[in-house]
């Protein structure tokens, strides 16, 4: 049986890659991808713990987390579209004014 440590290590690695990408990206779309990466790392943890404790609650919660991640991505892209419509670029370094 694969020890649980490997699943948690994989999830930590994927999360830190997403964190690295999230911190250093200037493009809005790439940053949303990295947020998705972090959410999927959390899902890996949820399913790993739920299957290793013989209790399905974690997998149900992972299902909810996946759908909320989809909702969040939809809102994120809608915001980026409206920003692009106003500014013709999504370079998050230059968007620092809340009301323009």
């Amino acid at each position, binding site marked *: 049986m694969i020890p649980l440590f490997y699943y948690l290590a994989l999830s930590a690695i994927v999360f830190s890659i997403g964190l*690295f990408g999230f911190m250093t990206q200037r493009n809005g779309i790439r940053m949303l991808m990295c947020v998705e990466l972090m959410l999927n790392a959390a899902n890996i943890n949820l399913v790993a713990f739920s299957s290793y404790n013989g209790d399905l609650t974690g997998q*149900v919660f992972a299902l909810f987390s996946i759908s*909320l991640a989809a*909702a969040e991505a939809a809102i994120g892209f*809608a915001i980026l*579209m409206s920003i692009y419509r106003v500014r013709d670029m999504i370079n998050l370094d230059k968007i620092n004014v809340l009301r323009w």
Partner: protein
Amino acid sequence: MLNKHFTIMQVLTGVYNFFRPRIAGMVVSILFLAIVLISIGFTNWNVVDQIPQDPMDQSNIQGIGMLIFTDFVIPFEILSIVLLATLMGAIYMAKGDGT
């Protein structure tokens, strides 16, 4: 790209220039990874010794379905309302003022 002759120094400087603006991010994420890995490594999880797998029915879709509609009905309905609101909000924001 393939027919050029790169010296080792050019490759190294190229890699360094790529990572130069991102070094702070790399340091933070590597430190985070180290902390989490060490903390995961040294805790012994009370794990069920054998994953409950009956070879006949490998998938647990039935279990998840039963669980969703018995214990987690309210979160399931709230989730549908949240997704509906997200749909409305995203379409409204993305529609723009129709110019």
